[in-house]
């Protein structure tokens, strides 16, 4: 555990000791803020139109959760596809380039500790990112009346998605000594994970069901509706453990060659 903390601490130091963490946080929050603003404006205009039409039934059907929070969460999840690979791309390639990989692997440290330490360092940054975007939800809570449990469930979904993305990025970064390959490889994998569900709609039978289950968007969408189902939690946990386990094997494979 001590080694995990040491390695995670060093990761964090390299994120926050350089502009990396700040640039990523700023880019993510600025774009999320823009989406939030645009959604809010659209919500307001629709609301006014229906008020003018004096249609209380339609007014009832509109709420902040559906019109603002859920789309905002979806937009932020798309942002994560582009931001998370930038968090993970340096994890292993930079060590391999600088020769510090040799230091890590010749120290009395278990491979699991190296992998988990690096993952944990990235986790702090990514969860900080998602946590700070909770600001938009808090604003709505102060000035409006969203359903808080539904909102929290959505944010939990976003957080879980970020964690899974991070694990996938860690895995792909462990394959290469090149940051560009790590970034693009992770971006590709995350886009596949995000969009594979589209295929599921056209495929019939058990294969279609599997493809739909494999799509991260399906599980995330459930959570933005306020539904926390064990099935979805199991999905996120499975992907997380699978990615970290494969990273362990990938790092270990240096010792087989």
């Amino acid at each position, binding site marked *: 555990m*001590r*080694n995990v903390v*040491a*390695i995670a*601490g*060093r990761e964090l*130091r*390299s994120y926050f*000791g*350089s502009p990396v963490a700040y640039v990523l946080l700023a880019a993510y929050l600025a774009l999320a803020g823009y989406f939030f603003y645009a959604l809010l404006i659209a919500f307001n205009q629709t609301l006014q139109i229906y008020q003018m039409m004096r249609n209380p039934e339609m007014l009832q059907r509109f709420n902040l959760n559906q019109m603002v929070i859920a789309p905002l969460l979806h937009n932020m999840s798309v942002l994560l596809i582009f931001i998370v690979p930038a968090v993970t791309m340096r994890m292993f390639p930079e060590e391999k380039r*600088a*020769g*510090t*990989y*040799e*230091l*890590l*692997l*010749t*120290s*009395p*440290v*278990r491979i699991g500790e190296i992998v988990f330490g690096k993952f944990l360092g990235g986790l702090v940054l990514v969860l900080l990112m998602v946590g700070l975007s909770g600001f938009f939800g808090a604003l709505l809570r102060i000035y409006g009346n969203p359903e808080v449990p539904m909102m929290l469930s959505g944010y939990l979904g976003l957080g879980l998605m970020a964690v899974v993305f991070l694990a996938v990025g860690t895995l792909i970064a462990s394959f290469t000594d090149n940051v560009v390959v790590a970034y693009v490889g992770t971006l590709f994998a995350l886009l596949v994970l995000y969009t594979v569900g589209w295929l599921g709609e056209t495929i019939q039978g058990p294969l279609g069901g599997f493809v739909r289950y494999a799509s991260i968007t399906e599980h995330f969408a459930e959570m933005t509706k306020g539904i926390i189902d064990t099935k979805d939690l199991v999905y996120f946990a499975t992907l997380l453990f699978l990615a970290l386990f494969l990273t362990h094997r990938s790092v270990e494979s*240096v*010792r*087989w*060659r």
Partner: protein
Amino acid sequence: MIEVANLTKRYGDLSAVRDVSFTAPTGQILGFLGPNGAGKTTTMRIITGFLPATSGTVRVEGFDVFQQSTEVRRRIGYLPENPPLYNDMAVAPYLRFVARLKGVARRDVEPALERVLETCGLTGVRDRLTGHLSKGFRQRVGLAQALIHDPPVLVLDEPTIGLDPAQIRDIRSLIKTLGGKRTVVLSTHILPEVAQVCDKVVIISNGRIVVEDALENLTRGRSLEEVFLDAISKDLGDGARAPAAADVEA
């Protein structure tokens, strides 16, 4: 004490190291010599547990590198060919990080840090980023990280490469003081370095050991240069002799 027995490393069809055996007894500084690409770095990477061998065994302080890897890694200080530095870290935090990785107890970290800063002459640059240091200082930080957990075995891959003459002299005298109770393996292709620092010489050429003897036996009546060129030209055949000789004289 390092015991290497019948070590072979193949990368596909290419044999980097073939049936290499030698021992480095405790308290001795062993000079590991050879032309570039002879297999020095590969052998050292296997000794430190970074690379697995294709066949053969390595024992460090009685522990098998493949079976009891963690025990071995606890006891080795390793300076790879390029010092393994994080350029975005200052010297002192970097060495603290390495100390923790190497399993130095929490309360011993600061004394260990002060000790290596002192021995490696780094006190003046302790707050500088390693990425901003000159080659000589980087090399010394590399040596400091190898020494931080006071290991009984040191593996140094070309520790004086790229240094100016004054720095080379400093590093050499430092390495000389490291012998005594430690086992040191030092690779180089600078022959005077071996003559000044080492007790024992192993010459490797083309992945094979061609000479293993005490320095004083080898240099009786001959210079080390003659011994070296003789050994490697026998191995490579006459065609390689002329350029090899020119290489060393230059």
